[in-house]
């Protein structure tokens, strides 16, 4: 029998923190991966920086940092305060919550499907949510997409995809193919609706078809902001099970994980987040691909970077929106087009690079 000093640390001191060991006999012990902690702090710093820049720069006026801060606290000139608090801050918040929601949904779905391509956008959830949102816009003439409609659309698309395949299955190929088909049907429905209505109604629905932070309905932002924190907590709670579920269903079940239930929980969270995020910004699905990939590059291998993906998604969304506003100012490029421009090469890289095709 070797003494503990001779054997390697199964949990290496240099790679992990053991958080909250409350005394010798206390059961509260949480493993925190040092690299993931560092990655999350880095992403959080980046997010704060980008949010600050977004508040500063705009077509109305580029304010100095002190002026921005004063306006943020309601202490500046009335004009500055209006620009910051009424125009820019809601937009930045909308960007953070939608980006975080899309990327968290993407991270969860990629993990349960064991496939990097299985993001909500690619398996048709975005299109389902968009079709329902557009239907409500062109059908009723109200220029609001009720989050409930988009949520229903995402759920219908998920139910169809799930129903067609029965289960997400090994490596998720069938799920992916069925999802692409379901997404195509909903995409076609959206186009059909837009061609059958008046040009004004089609114009009102336009932001939801390309993805933009311009037409964000306040109540949709509120619903998403309320849903995101519990969804993130659920994701963090599921991380332990998802980390083992990455191996294989048989191993996970043998280790005591209710694989089916875990998968349904992750999928449900992803559907809710996607539906509510589409209601705010339209189908900016590429964030669900870019965010988790960005987080995975920064995080420790063989972990499921739930928090990292959420932060990275928010970073990508705010950065893309900022780029879209700055590049051809004063003309604004919708954020959905900017993320598609960044995301498409990434998608091609994943498809063509055999190493990237491995399960997330």
């Amino acid at each position, binding site marked *: *029998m*070797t003494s*503990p000093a001779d*054997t*390697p*640390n*199964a*949990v*290496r001191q240099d790679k992990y923190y*053991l958080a909250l060991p409350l005394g010798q*006999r*206390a*059961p*509260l*012990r*949480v*493993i925190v991966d040092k690299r993931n902690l560092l990655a999350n702090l880095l992403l959080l710093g980046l997010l704060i920086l980008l949010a600050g820049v977004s508040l500063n720069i705009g077509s109305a006026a580029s304010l100095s940092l002190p002026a921005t801060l004063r306006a943020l606290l309601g202490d500046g000139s009335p004009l500055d305060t209006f620009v910051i608090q009424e125009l820019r801050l809601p937009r930045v918040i909308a960007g953070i919550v939608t980006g975080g929601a899309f990327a968290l949904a993407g991270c969860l779905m990629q993990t349960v499907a064991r496939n990097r391509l299985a993001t909500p956008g690619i398996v048709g959830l975005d299109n389902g949510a968009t079709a329902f949102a557009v239907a409500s816009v062109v059908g009723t003439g109200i220029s609001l997409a009720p989050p409930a409609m988009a949520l229903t659309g995402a759920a219908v698309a998920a139910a169809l995809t799930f129903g067609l395949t029965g289960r997400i299955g090994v490596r998720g190929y069938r799920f992916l193919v069925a999802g692409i088909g379901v997404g195509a049907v909903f995409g076609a429905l959206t186009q059909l609706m837009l061609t059958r209505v008046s040009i004004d109604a089609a114009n009102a629905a336009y932001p939801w078809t390309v993805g933009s932070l311009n037409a964000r309905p306040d109540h949709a932002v509120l619903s998403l902001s309320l849903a995101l924190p519990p969804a993130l907590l659920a994701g963090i*709670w599921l991380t*332990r099970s998802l980390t*083992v579920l*990455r*191996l*294989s*269903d*048989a*191993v996970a*079940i*043998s*280790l*005591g*994980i*209710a694989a089916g239930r875990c998968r349904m929980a992750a999928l449900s969270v992803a559907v809710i987040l996607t539906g509510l995020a589409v209601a705010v910004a339209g189908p900016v699905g590429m964030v669900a691909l870019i965010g988790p990939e960005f987080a995975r590059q920064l995080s420790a*291998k*063989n972990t499921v970077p739930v928090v990292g993906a959420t932060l990275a998604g928010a970073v990508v969304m705010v950065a893309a929106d900022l780029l879209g506003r700055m590049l051809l100012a004063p003309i604004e490029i919708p954020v959905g087009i900017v993320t598609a421009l960044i995301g498409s090469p990434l998608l091609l890289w994943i498809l063509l690079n055999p190493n990237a095709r*491995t*399960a997330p």
Partner: protein
Amino acid sequence: MTHDAPACERDTAQPDTAPDMTAPDMATQGLSLAYGSVAVIEDLDLQLPAGQVTAIVGPNGCGKSTLLAGLSRLLKPRGGTVLLNGTDIRHQPTRQLAKRLALLPQQPHAPEALTVAELVRFGRHPHQSWLRQWSPEDKRIVDEALDMTGLTPLAQRPVDALSGGQRQRAWIAMAIAQQTATLLLDEPTSALDLGHQVEVYELIQSLAASGKTIVMVIHDLVSACRYADHLIAMHQGHVIAEGLPGETVTPELVRRLYGVECSLITDPVTGAPLLTNIRRTRDALDGSAT
């Protein structure tokens, strides 16, 4: 003696790390297993002896892997029950069952760059919870599992950089860290060369010697005779022979299982039966064998 732990045992402050080393008996009663509408096993009654190595053998498609899937709750029975210590495994929460019963699937795949220590750590999963992700007890058991499988020097190496035998030992180490009294293995030596096969079989034997009940599905009848205490021969979903390998394996059984003729001799060293002069039967040559 039963080990039906109360449900409240789950998250008590005192870690229930005392290994359940009383060899349990595993049995099936009227077990029927099917994939979709295809019935593979029907109404099977089986006793798996406690504290021994049981080998399940049979031709391809005889239902032996299906049986293992049923025993390990991967496949829900169409009828009948799987009993562990007299209790239906379906009536136990999957996490509680994971402290009593471990399964090693056939050729499991480890994600890229996962280290041996990280893999073995997963074995502690059923004993942990979100608020108690690691304990000194966990560390001791993981280190012990690495030690038992001779993988201590390789603990920080990626699993996919190991040889086939080392890789299989790493997976077995994960199952050891799970500290279950029963271990099910699906073809633990497939795709391994002779040296690595022996490495794995001897490890399995030492686990049985330490009190575990082992059930393994294997292809190689000679290895089954050499390393198992109990042999179960399956053909088309039925158990057609079971017992001590030396008494169970006959030329007649080999003909029924695999459609080949052979002669049997006794291994002068181990006393296990050896197959020799193996050739196809006339039936097989006529193409009329089942």
